[in-house]
């Protein structure tokens, strides 16, 4: 049995739909990981211990265990304690929190690297410490880590393939379904790889735009 890519176009619909789900999954998880990363960073640095400890536990859990296991736990495990999440939601939570922890590490370092004079200038104007953090320090820290966070988001896109195991019909699962029907593994995995690559190019273009936009404001 040689390779025959002529079969691929007849599955273009399901594959593109899968790609669309991958994009959606990635974008929603990326937003969660970004906002969650900021929140976790601020809590880790300035939160009272009553919130800092649970936040540290979440960080430990999501950094110290495999993402695949986390997805299983969220999707199959939580049902047992009465939390029945749709697969897509479970996927977003797993991917989002996993990468929120990584983003938080970056943002924490960046917050500590913001020049001390920035906080002083804000406090001198009469801003409270929380106001100064929200208006002055955190925005600068986030701008400083846009490139490495961008790298995390590209890793997130690739890890979104793991969500196929809990039954979200994203690109990898769409390819697997097509293979199940045709037994053409090479052709469909290759087609999926090309689509991932295209999505990746799109993401990189968006990230470059963001970086260009914040260039002056750094």
């Amino acid at each position, binding site marked *: 049995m040689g390779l025959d890519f002529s079969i691929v176009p007849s599955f273009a619909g399901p594959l593109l739909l899968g790609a669309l789900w991958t994009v959606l999954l990635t974008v929603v998880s990326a937003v969660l990981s970004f906002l969650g990363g900021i929140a976790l960073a601020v809590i880790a640095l300035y939160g009272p211990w009553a919130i800092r400890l649970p936040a540290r536990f979440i960080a430990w859990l999501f950094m110290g265990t495999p993402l695949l296991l986390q997805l299983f736990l969220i999707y199959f495990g939580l049902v047992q304690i009465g939390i029945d999440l749709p697969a897509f939601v479970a996927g977003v939570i797993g991917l989002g929190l996993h990468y929120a922890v990584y983003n938080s590490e970056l943002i924490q370092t960046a917050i500590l690297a913001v020049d001390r004079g920035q906080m*002083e*200038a804000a406090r*001198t*104007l009469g*801003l409270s410490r929380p106001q100064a953090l929200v208006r002055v320090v955190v925005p*600068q820290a986030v701008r400083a880590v846009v490139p490495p966070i961008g790298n995390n988001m590209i890793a997130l896109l690739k890890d979104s393939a793991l969500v196929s195991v809990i039954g979200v019909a994203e690109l990898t699962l769409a390819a697997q379904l097509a293979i199940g029907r045709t037994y053409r593994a090479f052709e469909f995995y290759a087609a999926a790889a090309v689509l991932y690559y295209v999505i990746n190019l799109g993401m990189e273009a968006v990230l470059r735009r963001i970086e260009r936009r914040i260039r*002056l*404001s750094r």
Partner: protein
Amino acid sequence: MTQTPFVEIRHAQKSYGTLEVLRDVNLTVNRGEIVAIIGPSGSGKSTLLRAINDLDPLSAGEVLLEGVQVNKTLPPRAYEAHINEMRQHIGMVFQHFNLFPHLTVRQNVTMAPKLLKRLGEAEANRLAEEQLAHVGMLERIDYYPSQLSGGQKQRVAIARALAMKPKLMLFDEATSALDPELVEEVNQVMKRLAEEHMTMIIVTHEMDFAASVCDRVIFMDGGVVVEEGPPSVVFRTPTQERTRNFLRKYLEGAK
């Protein structure tokens, strides 16, 4: 009749571990007065200035603004509210400008008034335009700090402080980080403020500026006020040996 002094520093003492930076400094500044604090580095002059708005809290002693103690001992929450209120009346300009790089010039100026005085968009914009015009920076209103020269940044920083309508302005070596050719534009703005009778306390290394603008010069060394008086006296006929030494070294350096 004794009038409450505008700014009063009583028995200011500050130490870092065993290092005494300020030892029993007393200082009174009247409304509208322009005071220069000069002295060698490490003399405690910046520490004293930063104690006035409690940025560097004193170890002991009191700072009063119009009779109200700035560095009150209060429970944390009450202190926060108190100091944020007090600082709205005390503008400060830093050596390294400390403009907010992620905000435009306009946003740098309007942020605090919008946040703390609840100014609306239109009102805040009008305020920013007025203050920036005052320091000659109106045409750069929508630039980011990264697009400005040092002198321009410092002028914006002054406008940002003035937008809160402070009663008192503190200048912490405002021109020390500037290229020599940019010093004059900042000095001009400070002179203008002086003519408008803003009360100013200026830590500076520029003796010429201190002599021409200030009403009184304070010479500090080793954490104490060694000598104070009108610039004509302190600069021309200093009574203290340490002042003479300092001024001699300064003049030699200036040659």
